[in-house]
Structures are given as structure tokens and as C-alpha cells.
């Protein structure tokens, strides 16, 4: 059933965010520490576990992957509610800092992305990664023929 997938996603998110809050509390930070990242790891683990035990049904996949396909529209909605006016009106200090940071981080991405890249083929399973991309871009109907059975 589809709701099982949505519920699985919700439970992973709730547990992850809770763990992030607990981690923040333990570290004495007034913020959630990696809650979404922890939730992602939980969901990855759940997927592996369901696949191994043969319980990864069509409905479960549909329920989770639907929200994956909604990712980009949600990001567009997110962009529509940024405080762009304040960002652009911040003055020279804001401009210099933001531009400098973004340039520096792109440079660092180029450098770090190359570390340990000597293996001939970096991607472990090209088809699987590609299918993931199609789901997230909203171009693939969940459960269409793909690598992940």
C-alpha cells in the first residue's frame, strides 16, 4: 500500500529530526545537528533491509518515490519565498562576503572532488544512479522498468 511508503518516509524523517535535536542538545547547540542527513541514512538502511527481506513492494516504493519526484517543485516553491530583497539590499559587505565565499567554495569543490579519483570508473552502478536522477527530476513514473527491482 502506498501509505506504507509515505509512512516509512515520515517515520524516518521524524526519527532523524529527533536524533538531530538530541545530538544538538548533547553538544549544547541551539540547532538540529544533521537531522535530515540522519533521516536519509535511516531511509537508505530501511530500503536495503526491505529489499533483502523481499518486502519492498510496489506501494512502498510509490509512496516514497512520489515525494522524490516532488522534490524540484518543492525547491521552486522554496525559491519563491526567499528573502531576495534583503539579500540584494544588504550592501557591499554582504555582496563581497557572499560572492567571495561562493567563488572560494567552488574552487574547493574542484580541488576536493578530484581527491582519490584515480579509479578508472568512479560510478559503481551507472544505471542505478541514472534512474535515481530520473525519479528526482520527475521524469520517470515510479516503478517503471529500471535497475532497482
Amino acid at each position, binding site marked *: 500500500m502506498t501509505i506504507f511508503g509515505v509512512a516509512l518516509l515520515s517515520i524516518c524523517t521524524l526519527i532523524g529530526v529527533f536524533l538531530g535535536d538530541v545530538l544538538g542538545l548533547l553538544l549544547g547547540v541551539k540547532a538540529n545537528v544533521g537531522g535530515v542527513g540522519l533521516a536519509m541514512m535511516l531511509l537508505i538502511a530501511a530500503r536495503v533491509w526491505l529489499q533483502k527481506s523481499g518486502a519492498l513492494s510496489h506501494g512502498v516504493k510509490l509512496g516514497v518515490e512520489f515525494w522524490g519526484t516532488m522534490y*524540484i517543485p518543492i525547491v521552486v516553491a522554496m525559491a519563491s519565498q526567499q528573502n531576495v530583497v534583503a539579500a540584494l539590499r544588504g550592501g557591499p559587505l554582504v*555582496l563581497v562576503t557572499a560572492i567571495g565565499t561562493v567563488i572560494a567554495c567552488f574552487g574547493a569543490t574542484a580541488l576536493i572532488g578530484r581527491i582519490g579519483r584515480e579509479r578508472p570508473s568512479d560510478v559503481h552502478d551507472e544505471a542505478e544512479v541514472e534512474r535515481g536522477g530520473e*525519479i528526482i527530476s520527475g521524469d520517470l513514473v515510479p516503478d517503471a522498468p529500471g535497475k532497482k527491482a
Partner: protein
Amino acid sequence: MMHMIQHIFIEQSLVAAFAFVGVVMWVSLIISKRLTMGRIHGSAIAIVMGLGLAYVGGLVTGGQKGIADMPVFAGIGLLGGAMLRDFAIVATAFEVDVVEARKAGMLGVFALVIGTVLPFIIGAAAAVAFGYSDAVSITTIGAGAITYIVGPVTGAALGASSTVIALAIATGVLKAVLIMVTTPMLARFVGLDNPRSAMAFGGLMGTVSGVAGGLAATDPKLVPYGALTATFHTGIGCLVGPSILYLAVRAITG
């Protein structure tokens, strides 16, 4: 008549938001196909349109939440708010290649460290260059360069003035906006085309909204890898900002 339509938009806010974003995506795809021959990703155009609408919304309402401050578009606030954004980000993890993510794990951690320290140094240096000399203001502005949440959290913890906190937030938001817009253009030059570099990118850029938007507009298959590292960024920034980084700045400024 107009009033009735307005009433429906307000009452059915989330449903209206789905329709609104759908139209924006549709127009963007047409622009992408017809005007750029598909060279510019439809999602990239949609995100830039979103930012443009946010600017208009901000000008019209004088609020802080872009177009979502208009009552008829309040549903955008829910659809694009942190709750559903994080929910969708977690859902993308379902498409992660476990082997791939594990291989790049250490790289991601390394990127997180650099991605916290490097923006902070740049922000702090800019603050000094613009005449700030007290450790609290320098640290807060530096923290704003990490993400727009780290800035105010650090500033509040250290007791920075509200002007400085506002500057830190503006810096973080502008950083996120710049990442959304420039990532599709620069992706090729920095080798951002595989899960490994996406994890490095997420850790370095931090700001979840910037990374979420930037990667969506570049190559959706990279989204979960970048998001996986980026979501740790704010937490780590809030951890080291008011502590280690503040102490370091105080040691230098005396």
C-alpha cells in the same frame, strides 16, 4: 468575483500552491525548450523565476518571505517551507547508491570541515576590512557566511547587535541565492558531474536551500549525494560558530 477567487486561493492555500508551482514549471519547460533549445535546464529557469517572484513579492509586501507573504500565495510558504522541503530531501535518499555514498563518506566529512572554516575566514576578513573590530561582530558576520541560520544563532549566542545579525542573515541568504543560480553554470568547470563531487559540493557549500536548488537545476541525480552532506552543515556551524571560531577570533583580536 475577484474577491471570491481570492477567497478560494486563501482557503485552499496548499492546493493553490500546487497549481501555481505547476504553472511555473510548465512555463519554464517551454522557455527551456523553445528559447534555449534545451541548453538551460527547465528546473534552473523555474528556480530563477521563483527567485524573481520572491523579489517582487518582497517589494510589494515588504515582508521577509517573498511571494508567500501575499495572502493568496500563502500556500507556497507551506509547500516550500522547511517541513516539506526536508521531507522531499529525505525521500531523495531512496535513490542513493549505497556503495557510492559510502565510498565518498570521508571525502564528505573533509568537505564539511573546509566548508565551515573557509566561508568563516572570508566573512570574518570582510568584516574586518569593513571596519568591524570587536570579536562578537566579526564572528557573527563570519558565521553568516556559513549559512543564514548559523549567523543569527551565533549572533544570538554571543549577544551581537541586531544590525550585525541582519547583515549575517543577508549574507547567508545571498550566498544561498548565488549558489542556486550559479551552480548550473559552473558545474562543468568544477567537475560536478558524479556522486563523489556532489558530496564534496554539499559539504563545502553547506546551506541546504542553496545546495537543494543548485543541484536540482544542474543534475537531479546528484541531489541526494549533495543533500546528504549539506544537511550536516548548519548543525556543525552552529556548534563551532559560538565556541571554537569565536574563541579563535577573540584570541586574534585580543
